[in-house]
C-alpha cells in the first residue's frame, strides 16, 4: 500500500477521453504518478524492473479516477452523519479518486485553517479531498472570505452551498475577487425569497400533497441574475459554476451565456436526470433534496443537456444524514441524499445502456470534465505524468445496490435496490489501492 510501490495494470481497455484514447493499453504507475502507457505487453520488462504489483484488467475498463466536485463530507462538526474517512471510503467504492467538499460544515469552512484541517492526513481520507471554501464569512452572505489565502490553503472554489449568495452587490464582489484569485464561484442557485417553507417542487403534486412548492423560477431567476452580473464585470473574466442545476429554464440560461462567450459551467446530479417529483410518493424523505426533484419535462431536459453537451459534468451532491433526521415529518426532514456509490452505476445504466452513449462520454462527464471545471491539475486523465488516479471497472456487470451495505455512515438514498451497470473492481488513488472488490460470480 506504500506509494513507492509500482503498479502495472495490464490487459484492460484504457478509456482516457482527455487524451483521446480508447484502446487496449497497459499502464504503469509509480510514486503516485502515471509513468508509462503502452500497447499490451510492452511494459512487461519495465514492470519487472520496478518489481511492480500486477493488476490483471482483462475484460475491464481502465479509466481516469472519477471526480465528484460536489460532496458534503460533514467534517468538521457533524461526524455522526459522515466523516472524511467514511465519505472517502464511499467515494472510493464508487470509483471516485477526487472529491470536492462543500463548506457547510460546523463551523463553516471559511478559513485557511479549516481548509488545511480537512486535508490533513489525520482525517484518514482514502482518496484526495479538495475543499471548496465559503464564499462569505460563515456563509452569511455579507462579507467575503479571504479568497487568496483560501486558495493557498488548497481551496479549489468558493461557494455558500446550501444557501445562495443572494445579495447582488456581494455576488458581484465575489465574482470579481474570485476572478482575480483564479477561483470559480459556485452558486447554489435558489432565490430563497420564493422558497420559504417549501419542501418539494411546485406543481400539481405539491398541491395534492399539501406541501409548499419551490417554483423553478427560484432557480432560473438567480442563474439569470448571476449571468447578468458576470456579463457586467469590468476588466476581469470570472468563472461562474452553477451547482446541481435542475430546471429547463436555468439550463437554457447557461446555454445562452456560453454562446455569448461567458465562462459559465454547470453540473447535474444523478437524481435530477433520473427521478421526478413523483418519487416523493407518500412523503418519502429520501426523495427530499434541494433543489427538489422536478417535473418530468425538467428531468428530460437534464438528460438532454447531458446528451447534447451543455452540461459540463455529473456531480452527486452527496449529502449524508442520520436515520433519525430523515425519519421525521417530511417538512422537517433535512434535504439531501447520498450519491457516491451509485453515480457511476446509474450513469452507465442510463447513458450507456439506455441511450447508447459511448463509455468514454460517461467517463468524460464523471472524470475529465469535472476535473477541468475546477482546474484540478493532473486529474481526470491518465496521460503520462498525471496523478495515478485510476478506476478499473467491469462495464458489463450489472449489480443491485443495497443501501445497508453502503460504506457511507448514512444510508439516505432513493436508489436502494436499484440495478446498476458497471462494477468497480479497483480504485487507485495516487498509486495506492483505495478500494478493491473481488469479482462476484
Amino acid at each position, binding site marked *: 500500500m506504500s506509494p513507492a510501490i509500482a503498479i502495472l495494470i495490464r490487459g484492460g481497455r484504457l478509456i482516457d477521453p482527455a487524451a483521446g484514447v480508447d484502446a487496449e493499453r497497459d499502464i504503469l504507475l509509480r510514486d503516485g504518478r502515471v509513468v508509462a502507457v503502452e500497447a499490451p505487453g510492452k511494459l512487461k520488462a519495465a514492470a519487472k524492473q520496478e518489481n511492480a504489483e500486477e493488476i490483471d484488467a482483462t475484460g475491464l475498463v481502465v479509466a481516469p479516477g472519477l471526480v465528484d466536485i460536489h460532496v458534503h463530507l460533514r467534517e468538521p462538526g457533524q461526524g455522526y452523519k459522515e466523516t472524511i474517512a467514511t465519505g472517502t471510503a464511499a467515494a472510493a467504492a464508487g470509483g471516485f479518486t477526487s472529491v470536492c467538499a462543500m463548506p457547510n460544515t460546523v463551523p463553516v469552512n471559511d478559513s485557511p485553517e479549516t481548509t488545511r484541517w480537512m486535508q490533513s492526513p489525520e482525517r484518514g481520507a482514502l482518496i484526495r479531498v479538495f475543499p471548496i471554501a465559503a464564499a462569505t464569512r460563515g456563509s452569511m452572505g455579507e462579507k467575503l472570505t479571504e479568497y487568496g489565502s483560501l486558495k493557498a490553503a488548497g481551496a479549489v472554489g468558493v461557494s455558500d452551498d446550501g444557501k445562495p449568495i443572494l445579495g447582488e452587490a456581494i455576488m458581484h464582489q465575489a465574482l470579481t475577487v474570485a476572478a482575480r484569485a483564479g477561483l470559480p464561484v459556485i452558486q447554489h442557485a435558489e432565490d430563497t425569497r420564493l422558497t420559504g417553507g417549501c419542501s418539494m417542487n411546485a406543481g400539481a403534486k405539491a398541491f395534492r400533497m399539501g*406541501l409548499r412548492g419551490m417554483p423553478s423560477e427560484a432557480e432560473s431567476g438567480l442563474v439569470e441574475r448571476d449571468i447578468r452580473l458576470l456579463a457586467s464585470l469590468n476588466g476581469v473574466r470570472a468563472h461562474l459554476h452553477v451547482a446541481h442545476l435542475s430546471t429547463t429554464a436555468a439550463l437554457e440560461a447557461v446555454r445562452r451565456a456560453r454562446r455569448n462567450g461567458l465562462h459559465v459551467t454547470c453540473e447535474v446530479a444523478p437524481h435530477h436526470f433520473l427521478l421526478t417529483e413523483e418519487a416523493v410518493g407518500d412523503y418519502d424523505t429520501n426523495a427530499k433534496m434541494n433543489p427538489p426533484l422536478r417535473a418530468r419535462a425538467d428531468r428530460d431536459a437534464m438528460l438532454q443537456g447531458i446528451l447534447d453537451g451543455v452540461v459540463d459534468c455529473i456531480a452527486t451532491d452527496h449529502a449524508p444524514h442520520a436515520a433519525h433526521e430523515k*425519519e421525521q415529518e*417530511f*417538512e422537517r426532514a433535512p434535504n439531501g441524499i447520498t450519491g457516491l456509490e451509485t453515480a457511476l452505476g446509474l450513469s452507465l445504466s442510463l447513458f450507456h445502456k439506455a441511450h447508447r452513449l459511448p463509455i468514454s462520454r460517461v467517463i468524460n462527464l464523471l472524470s475529465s470534465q469535472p476535473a477541468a471545471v475546477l482546474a484540478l491539475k493532473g486529474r481526470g486523465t491518465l496521460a503520462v505524468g498525471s496523478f495515478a488516479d485510476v478506476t478499473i471497472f467491469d462495464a458489463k456487470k450489472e449489480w443491485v445496490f443495497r443501501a445497508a451495505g453502503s460504506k457511507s455512515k448514512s444510508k439516505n438514498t432513493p436508489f436502494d435496490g436499484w440495478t446498476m451497470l458497471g462494477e468497480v473492481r479497483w480504485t487507485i488513488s495516487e498509486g495506492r489501492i483505495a478500494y478493491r472488490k473481488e469479482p462476484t460470480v
Partner: protein
Amino acid sequence: MVRSRGSVISVLDLSIEDVASILAQARSFENEDPLIRMKRLLKRRVALLFYESSTRTRTSFELAAKSLGADTALISSQSSSIEKGESLKDTGITLKALGAECIILRHLSSGAPYLLEAATGLPILNGGDGMHEHPSQALLDLRTMLAHLRDGTAEVDETTLQGVTVTICGDILHSRVARSNALLLPRLGAQVIFCGPAALLPEIASQIGPGVTIERDFEKALADSQVVMMLRIQAERLAGLQVDLEEYKSRYQANGPRLAKFAPKALLLHPGPIIRGLELTSEVADGPQSLIAEQVRHGVAVRMALVARALDHSNAENTGTKSSEKPTKKARRA
C-alpha cells in the same frame, strides 16, 4: 411501504365499497342501544395524538371511541414530552407500548400520519395533517349531503351523487378539507367547483383529480350548486400572504342576499371553525340552509365506524397470532 389495514390517512385509502360499509356501520351504531353499543370495543385502547388545536375532531373522535366502550387517552403537544423534543416516531412507539391499538393523529405537517404508521405498524386515523387531508371530515360531509339529497342512503356507488354540484369556496390552498372532499365526492358522481381568489386557489388545484373545476365568480358557482361548502381563511398558514379582507368579503362571502339570489335551495356546509362576518354572515350560519351543527353530529357517527374499522383490523391481526399459538399448546399436551 407496508400500510396498516384499517388506517385511513387519505380518502383514497378507501374504495367506494369501503365508504358504503363505513356509512352503513355509522348508521347501525347510531341506531344502536347505547348500552349494547358500549360493549363493542369494551376496554380497547385508542390514543388521540393532537399536535394542533381542535374542538370538533378531537371531541367527536373521543366521544365516538368512548361510546363504543373503548378507553381513550389524549396526548396533546402542549403538556406532553413532545414539548421536550420527543419525535413523532418515539411518541408513537411509546403509545404503542402503552397498549394503544389505534392512533388518531392531528398534525401540522402534511404526511405525518404515514410516518407514524411506519413507526408503529398501527392503524392510523388521520384527524387532519397540515394542508394534506382530513378524510373523516369528507366522510361526514358526504353523510350530511346524503341525508338531505339522497334520503340518507348508505348504499353509495359511482352514480349516487350524479347531478350534484358542490362548490367549495375560500382558502382552498391551505385546506385539507377541500382536498379530501375533492378526492372523494367526484368518485361518487358529484362535480366539485373550487372557488376563491388566485392567492388562495392556484390554477394547478384543478389538477387534483377528475371532476374538479375552478370558477372564480362565486355567484356563478352558487347558481350551479346544490351544496356550498365555505372555508375559513387559515391565518395560521398564510405564511406572509396578504389578503385584502374587505375585497375578499365583497366577492366570496356567503351572505343572506347572495344566497337568496343565487342559491336559495343549496345546502350550506362549513367544516368549522367558522369566523362569523368573514367567510359567512351570522344570518347564514344560523339560517335555514345551514347544516353546520348537523355536520358535527354526523361526525360522531362516522368516526365510530372508522374507529371500529381500525380496531377490527388490529383485532384480526391479533387473532391471527393467537390461532397460530394453539397448535403449539396441543402439541405440548400430546
